[in-house]
């Protein structure tokens, strides 16, 4: 039904354009009297026949349309017709837009669901024998974390460990990357749970700040990439290596403003510097230049 209406509307558009072509030709012929009459007549005949063809196609598409059997069931939206308040008369368009938006969300989430079920990104290590399925946490994680942080030696990067909840299993790492950016890494055992990326002049001291996005687009973008990297490096069996690789990767952002994209050799694309770092080579790239 919807397709038929669409093709009918298209046919009407075609007819209108062919008719206006006819008028244009006659008008221009009137203006240029030099043009000889026979070629003008031929052209006109040609265009009139197109009009004829288009008209016939409209007739056939309209004939193919079925008369709606009864009034459309629009549910409560039908009541909007009776709305007298001019402020609310625009509601219908908004309603249609939000309906479309909702439909798209539905479609995309279905697609995402199939994608995710194909790529296993489960973040916890389950053993089949353990019926209660508890994720494994090392025996003495606090010591392991401290040892790992002390052994990381990266230029222009300082890491501080906090344990705001007093538990040995969860640690907050506050990373300062020269005078460029700040990041907080929340660990459970040695596994990364959450990464927050902020500008050097943005607050990251209170616990709540870890859930507030940076006010700068560039750091929000880096945070997105950091979340991808966190999943990329994730390994339940080699947790320390994974976290260590992640921190090395994060340290490569120290040149975020000073190094152009390796592919396009430019600094800015869509007003953002190269916010992506290759997971292996650590080369700076724009998000759009990755492939």
């Amino acid at each position, binding site marked *: 039904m919807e397709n038929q209406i669409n093709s009918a509307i298209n046919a009407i558009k075609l007819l209108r354009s062919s008719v206006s072509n006819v008028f244009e030709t006659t008008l221009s012929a009137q203006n240029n009297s030099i043009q000889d009459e026979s070629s003008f007549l031929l052209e006109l005949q040609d265009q009139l026949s197109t009009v004829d063809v288009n008209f016939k196609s409209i007739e056939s598409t309209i004939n193919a349309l079925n008369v709606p059997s009864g009034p459309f069931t629009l549910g409560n939206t039908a009541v909007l017709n009776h709305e007298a308040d001019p402020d609310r008369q625009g509601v219908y368009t908004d309603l249609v837009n939000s309906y479309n938006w909702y439909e798209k969300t539905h479609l995309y989430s279905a697609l995402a669901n199939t994608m995710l079920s194909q790529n296993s990104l489960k973040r916890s290590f389950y053993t089949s024998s353990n019926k209660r399925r508890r994720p494994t946490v090392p025996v003495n994680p606090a010591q392991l974390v401290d040892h790992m942080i002390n052994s990381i030696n990266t230029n222009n990067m300082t890491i501080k460990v906090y344990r705001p909840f007093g538990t040995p299993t969860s640690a907050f790492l506050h990373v300062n990357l020269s005078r460029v950016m700040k990041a907080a890494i929340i660990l459970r055992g040695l596994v990364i749970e959450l990464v927050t990326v902020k500008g050097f002049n943005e607050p990251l001291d209170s616990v709540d700040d870890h859930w507030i996005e940076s006010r700068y687009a560039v750091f929000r973008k880096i945070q997105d990439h950091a979340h991808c990297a966190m999943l990329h490096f994730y390994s339940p069996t080699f947790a320390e290596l994974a976290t260590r690789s992640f921190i090395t990767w994060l340290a490569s952002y120290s040149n975020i403003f000073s190094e152009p994209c390796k592919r396009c050799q430019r*600094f*800015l694309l869509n*007003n953002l510097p190269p916010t992506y770092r290759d997971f292996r080579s650590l080369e700076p790239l724009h998000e759009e230049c990755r492939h």
Partner: protein
Amino acid sequence: MGVTILTPYPLQNKSGAEAIEELSKRLLALGATQAGQFLVDGDIFEHSFKKIKIHVMHNSEYPASVFSILDNGQKQIPLITDLIFDLLMLKVNPIYSSKKMIKIESKGPRFELGDFLVKLGSVTMSQNQNFKGILIEVDYRPCLVPAFCWDLIKEFLQGLLGQQAPTAIPGYFTNTLPSNNPNQHYHRFNDTYQPIDTVQQYLEHFNNYRKQSQAPTI
């Protein structure tokens, strides 16, 4: 606030209003949104007999502050205070008096484009608002060290201004400054950027405009 570069824009036979309109259109076409207006002004108070000047400046980006720079000819000492400083300057009026003829201001539209903040200022001087030129301010808010992002801002300016974009680092950042160690050349390029740096860049350009307008009388 991040690193801010202030650059004069050559008019090339256009009027100031035309140039501002053209640049505004260009910014909007690049996807910028206009975010209000801005105003930076500068006044000079001169000591009645010593050779000391106090530049008193305001920046609408910091509406609660007064920026003042004490200049004794050899050294410039910046000071950031609350608005009440303006009233204090009135109190010391007999000793330090304002020269209204060389009060200068830059004002115009303010645009946001991604993390960039672009301000198109028309510079006018004295009470009869003599038009002096156009100053473009580009603020790259996420970055705090000029040395880190100068090339990035330069590229941005080239995209916006084309041929008229500056190619060299503004002198404000590269001039060597007095430091405690005479063997060490010190300049602001590697410093963490502060709001006073923006004001001091305006002061340099304002002083240039003042010199230009004084030149014919000498």
